[in-house]
């Protein structure tokens, strides 16, 4: 695991503070559950990354819906979300959302105040690397999670460098976690009713 948790681009060495490795997708689910105001940030590569169960836009939608959180999408991906019927999405250049995430007074994508968790997927490697660097240094109350296929050292949590198969499996497991949650919740509701 250790060797795999190296920056994917060999030279993009971050420094002393490096992302913890997500050894189990449940960690992600737990982080989201514990978050008061999470946001999923999806980059311009998302529609171009095709997995067996859909492209990364599909996965973003599934995760956002399962976990009940809004998406901020890179402008060029906005249409993809809307076309697929996902509405809880705001389009914003990634530098803008990152900049806002460093402002304690920002009201957040849904006017609920600053976010405490930002989850990233669908970016060029070095773009995500740098954006996460900005957040690591300048938004110390924000937890960041990378769901990219490659280790993102500037996140607080990241997958290591994994295969496409493993990646897809992990994404599915995160979604499953929440589905189970919902089932349980529904059951609880049923019981209560």
């Amino acid at each position: 695991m250790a060797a795999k948790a190296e920056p994917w681009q060999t030279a993009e060495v971050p420094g002393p503070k490096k992302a913890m490795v997500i050894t189990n997708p449940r960690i992600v689910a737990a982080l989201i559950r514990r978050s008061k105001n999470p946001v999923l940030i999806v980059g311009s590569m998302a529609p171009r990354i095709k997995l067996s169960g859909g492209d990364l836009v599909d996965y973003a939608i599934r995760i956002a819906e399962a976990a009940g959180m809004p998406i901020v999408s890179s402008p060029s991906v906005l249409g993809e979300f809307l076309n697929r019927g996902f509405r809880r999405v705001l389009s914003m250049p990634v530098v803008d959302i990152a900049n806002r995430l460093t402002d304690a007074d920002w009201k957040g994508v849904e006017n609920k105040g600053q976010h405490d968790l930002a989850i990233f997927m669908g970016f060029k490697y070095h773009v995500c690397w740098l954006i996460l660097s900005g957040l690591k240094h300048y938004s110390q109350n924000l937890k960041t999670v990378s769901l990219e296929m490659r280790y993102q050292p500037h996140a607080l949590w990241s997958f290591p460098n994994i295969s496409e198969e493993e990646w897809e499996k992990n994404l599915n497991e995160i979604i499953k976690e929440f589905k189970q949650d919902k089932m349980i919740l529904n059951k609880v509701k049923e019981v209560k009713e």
Partner: protein
Amino acid sequence: MVSEKNIRVKIDELRSSIGLLKGVEFSIGKVVSEEWLEEIGPTQFPKITDLREWDFKLLQRYKPFYMPFCDLCCLCTFGKCDLTGDKRGACGINMSAQQSRIVLLACCIGAATHTSHARHLLEHLIEKYGRDHPINVGGLNVEVEAPITRLVCGVKPRTLGDLEEVLNYLEQEIVRLLAATHTGQEASNLDFESKVFHAGMIDHVALEVADIAQISALGFPKADPEAPLVDIGLGVVDSTKPVIMVVGHNVPSAAAIVDYLVENGLYGGVEVVGLCCTAHDTTRYNPKAKIVGPISWQLRFIRSGLADVIVVDEQCIRADTLIEAQKVKAPVITTSDVNCGGLPDRTKDKVEKIVEDLVLGGQPGAFILDPEKAAEVAVKTALLIAPKRMKFKAIPDVSDIVEGAKKCRKCDDCRRACPNDLPIRDALAKVLEGNLNALASLYEACIGCGRCESACPVDLPLHSYIVKAAEKRIKEEKYKIRVGRGAIQDVEIRNVGSPIVLGEIPGVVAFVGCANYPNGGTEVAEMAVEFAKRRYIVVASGCAAMSIAMYKDEEGRTPYEAFPGAFDAGGIVNVGSCVSNSHIAGAAIKIANIFAKRRLRANYEEIADYILNRVGAVGVAWGAMSQKAAAIASGFWRLGVPVIVGPHGLKYRRMLLGRKDNPEDWYVYDARTGEKVYVGPAPEHLFYAAETKEEAMVMIAKLCMRPNDTTKGRAIKLSNYIDLHKRFFGTIPDDIHLFVRTLADVPLTMREEVIKVLEEKGWKENVIPDPTLLPRLVKKKVGE
């Protein structure tokens, strides 16, 4: 006020030692500054802090957002220091100050490069053409010959010699700025940023000095919208002839080669081909020269073996040129003291002896500081060595690629080393299936850096594989580029000033900088063509100007053939090499001066305020990679021109971002009343990196909006913005309510959908002021 002071030195010397020459004082003063009648403005030869107030105004609105490229500082032996989060280094510095310090360092390097380039070029030209050689960049068509120099320095250079004092000032400022990066100096990131702006302004003056000097002395096109079209592309080289390849930015040795060939009747018999800006300037000197391409073509062209002799001057030259050239047995001549390359200094040796050593003695190259001698050696060597070399190349055969592919360990180290994350290993795997297409398809996005090869544990020459796989396509790389025209004519400014300022020409879009593109140069060409079609004024320089050429429309025309070279709506204007970027800034300044009659001389703040609020100009450096590019960008920022970079531009480690959601940031003074008026986020950002070409294009359209737009102008700009947004993103933008001041701003054809957004957003009407950020420009104070 360096220049003035230096002049005084002389006077005092005269006075103190000779006594009787007191009257000289006035005469000297007159020569340099007093024959120009325009009243001098408040900031002649500004020092670092003279424009700090203006800088802080910009930085207040466009706050730096840092994305550290490294958590550490390693600048002194107290370090390395970990600056993560709120940690401080051993010198007490924090991360924001450190990041801005590195940006300043980069801009100092950039400005120093242009300034010393200008200095050496000028020394050479003065030696050759005399100190009294007049500055002439466009004859009667260009009265404001040096808008940046006039604006910054408050002097009006008439001869080459006049430019020397300007360079003294630039050097003094750069040294001071560089000093600020020393451990234990500047403590505040905002002050570092202000110094970054200062470095950028200095850089722009240097660009202008260099280009107006060479235009004047070397007979480059003088603001000619119809400068000739020349050949560009790897496919344009006539390989039957001896080929001399010139690389770099400082044209004297290349010009000397052309001269030597012409004088000796050899011109038809030898190909002179250029790479990077020296290529631009060689074609400006003689349009029979040819251009290979931008910096990213260096490795592939050397390895192609077509060049028999390689002459490098300075800037953007691969550091392994000598190693690569030796692979194809081509001697290298270095000609600049900033890149001697470790070669023996042959400057004082006899030409014949040097040629002999290169051709017969097998010496890998020579360092020759004298351009004329270097030229003669280059030509003679090329003629003698060409038959021996027989275009010996270092590009593999297909069978080599197959063998290589078999050796591949599938470690992916190549991809992990590739700046563009290209799937080389996968492409090699396809080779074993007999398919070269995957490899060939990497060609466009490959910036030719060679890092994949360095990384490969089995030393496969992967870049060469890609080039070989794309061979057919490369042979077809024959395009046309319009020779760099230099300055913009005053009359062109007069004609477009009003439509630009009022918004009827929706904007001036400048494609500049290097070739570190994320997906290849075609994107630049596509952007340029799109905006030219939309009747923006498109200008270009350097590598970007070359990339624009390498594109053909359905009818097979390159953009320079399809669009006119005039500085007018729908033109695509190649100004020239990197130093010609000065004409782009110059054009913006001239709009304020010539069209709007704002005083130019040493009046920086007012002009920058004018541009920021009224001139819808945007710079796009899609492949910006160098420290020079950083300096050029910061020169534009201080002048109020926003700059967009490609995704690699994030590695400059900080953006200057506006917050359209903070209304308080977008107030200006109404110069008519002194009232503070909300004008919306126009322009929204000062430095912005886009993830994709589409994102960049929408942002270009958006950043062209300025507070002063007339309703008609704003409607045109908005319609471009909305149209592009819809086309690329599928929706109408959700921020148009911020840009609609009155209903007259709404584009007629989009009325319904826009009004819908306005209603949703609770839009209210605003006034359109006479906008300024400078209280002193308010004609009538509130309550007066």
